[in-house]
């Protein structure tokens, strides 16, 4: 059955559990997520991997649901895959739960499912179980997706935000702040037009390639909500160290820099959805950078700073004039400056 027969929009009947629900699942979700584990039974039955596993869950409520560089479906796979990847875990299985607003266009839902299929395939993960609920108009904004993932941690890998050591180098895998900037320009009525695309990407292959050349990596984090700045502060707290970064070494797309300049925002605090912060001994730095720069989503990876014993709990920024300042921490809302 193809989606034309489902009607143009999602209705409450599609979530009621009857025939229409089955039709929706068959023609939209099953059509895209098909694999031997995705069955009509109450739970997926899976092979248990050897060794340690990692598990994570994440809810996605992005508005708008479609943006330059991706959509909520792609995002919902990337977010969970990347969280697993940061623990050195090969993503194996995902579940996804949809809450869809009554009246949501069927072709848009199909587009979301299709993006999930492509992204999951790229990351090598199988969507093995799902749930669909339809909420009345106004009860949710379009569509909300929650994904949960399980992955197998590669042997010999041990990463955590608590493992940064003084002397380690701090690497970002690409230019910062693009996803946050893209969404803000889509959502807010700033009247600013800039050709900025989200960095949303699945990063397991990147992490895998990195771990193949070096297992001696202390921290891998994906810099999502709160951006690279927030991740750095979290690491200083978890590891009880300071982090010293150099403003001129931080890769920022010139368009993102321009938008941030106009609105008075710090790119380090804008969300990324395809960027890693990696902390590793200096001896590993060249190998890691070499691999990152050869991979599709991390061509402009760069060392942006160093872990220090001094200033524990603080991120110190060497500014473009050579002074050292504390990287200020953002205060709640993102507001543009008015003069």
């Amino acid at each position, binding site marked *: 059955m193809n989606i034309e027969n489902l009607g143009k929009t999602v209705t409450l009947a599609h979530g009621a559990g009857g025939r229409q629900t089955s039709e929706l699942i068959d023609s939209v979700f099953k059509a895209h997520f098909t694999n031997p584990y995705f069955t009509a039974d109450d739970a997926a039955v899976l092979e248990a991997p050897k060794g340690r596993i990692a598990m994570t869950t994440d809810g996605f409520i992005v508005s708008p649901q479609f943006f330059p560089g991706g959509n909520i479906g792609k995002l919902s796979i990337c977010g969970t895959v990347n969280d697993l990847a940061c623990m050195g875990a090969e993503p194996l299985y995902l579940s996804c739960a949809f809450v869809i607003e009554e009246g949501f266009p069927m072709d848009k839902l199909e587009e979301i499912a299709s993006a999930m299929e492509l992204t999951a395939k790229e990351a090598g993960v199988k969507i093995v179980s799902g749930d669909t609920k339809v909420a009345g108009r106004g009860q949710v904004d379009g569509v909300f997706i929650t994904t949960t993932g399980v992955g197998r941690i590669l042997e010999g890998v041990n990463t955590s935000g608590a493992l940064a050591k003084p002397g380690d180098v701090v690497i970002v895998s690409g230019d910062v702040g693009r996803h946050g900037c893209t969404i803000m320009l889509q959502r807010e009525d700033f009247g600013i037009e800039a050709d900025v695309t989200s960095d949303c990407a699945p990063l397991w292959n990147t992490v895998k390639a990195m771990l193949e050349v070096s297992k001696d990596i202390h921290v891998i984090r994906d810099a999502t909500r709160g951006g690279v700045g927030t991740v750095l502060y979290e690491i200083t707290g978890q590891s009880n160290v300071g982090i010293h970064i150099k403003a001129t070494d931080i890769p920022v797309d010139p368009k993102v820099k321009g938008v941030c300049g106009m609105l008075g925002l710090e790119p380090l605090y804008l969300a990324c959805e395809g960027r890693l912060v990696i902390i590793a001994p200096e001896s590993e730095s060249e190998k890691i950078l070499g691999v990152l720069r050869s991979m599709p989503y991390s061509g402009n990876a760069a060392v942006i700073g160093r872990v220090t014993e001094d200033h524990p709990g603080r991120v110190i920024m060497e500014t473009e004039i050579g*002074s050292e*300042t504390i990287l*200020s921490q953002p*205060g709640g809302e993102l507001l543009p400056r*008015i*003069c």
Partner: protein
Amino acid sequence: MKNEELIDIIKSYDGPKLRIMEVCGTHTHEIFRLGIRQVLPDNIELISGPGCPVCVTPVAFIDEAIMLALEKGCTVCTFGDLIRVPGSEMSLAGARAQGGKIDIVYSPMDAESYAAAHRDEQVVFLSVGFETTTPASCIAVSMAEKDGIDNFSLLTANKTMPKAYEMLKDYVDVYLYPGHVNAIMGNSECIELAKRGVSGVVSGFTANEILSALAAAVIKVREGKPFFVNAYPRVVTDEGSPAAKSIMNKYMEAYDCEWRGLGIIPGSGRRLKDEYAAYDARKKYALPKISGKVNKACRCGEVLQGLIKPSDCPCFGTACVPTHPVGACMVSGEGACSAYYQYGGEL
């Protein structure tokens, strides 16, 4: 000139204590962000002055806006920063929690467009700001006039800088004039000020532009007489923007205006002329004269005059933090207290 060369010039200053006041919130913020204080010699002090429109907006103005929202049933459109500024009893955020309709906009024109699209609502725009934002408020009024929109008005607290420069001149040796104000107004007012003994340099906003302006100040101070330098010629011309000045002069007039912490500065305010009373929310809704209650522990007034540092205020960092501001200087990211707090004072 390169940053390093400019820093060398600034460091070479060997005269008596030099107090340089920046009067623009963006300068305050950039000076902190770039760590400019750290490259200055001990005999040069940078003081953050009263140039953030949120910081100088008096308590009574917030009270008036709340009255419009809660008692007059108006839709209040405002720049985001004003939402959390404490009034006598509450902030606009508090009024919103009590059911007041308060919307954040990014320009006065957006508020006018909102009024045009919602003819059943009475829309008031909180018109704060200096020479840079006042023309936009006037444009919004001209749009409303042209479109026949009678449900749009301004609650004005617009201000101009030159009278404030004169008022604070005894505390300051050199002003770092805000480049975008001079871009609108031109340089004639600052040239006049120099004739009356007030020195200053117009500065842009990049690291190199701010350092250039400071280096120019150091060089000119040595000559021993009042001066004016345009260190932002890329953007600022002597003439300024005739279009912006003309629209301001068409719709607005000067009056004696209250600044938070500084009191009344004669002739420093801008309000709508009588012939545009239909767009003046104070007149349209017959607002009573309100005298706001200021929290006495807050020393924003002295901070704005450069008499004390934010960290000298007993509220700073304890009762008064960005998430719960007591004074306006802690609200806006450009306020001196907020900048001190965000960047942790000195390293």
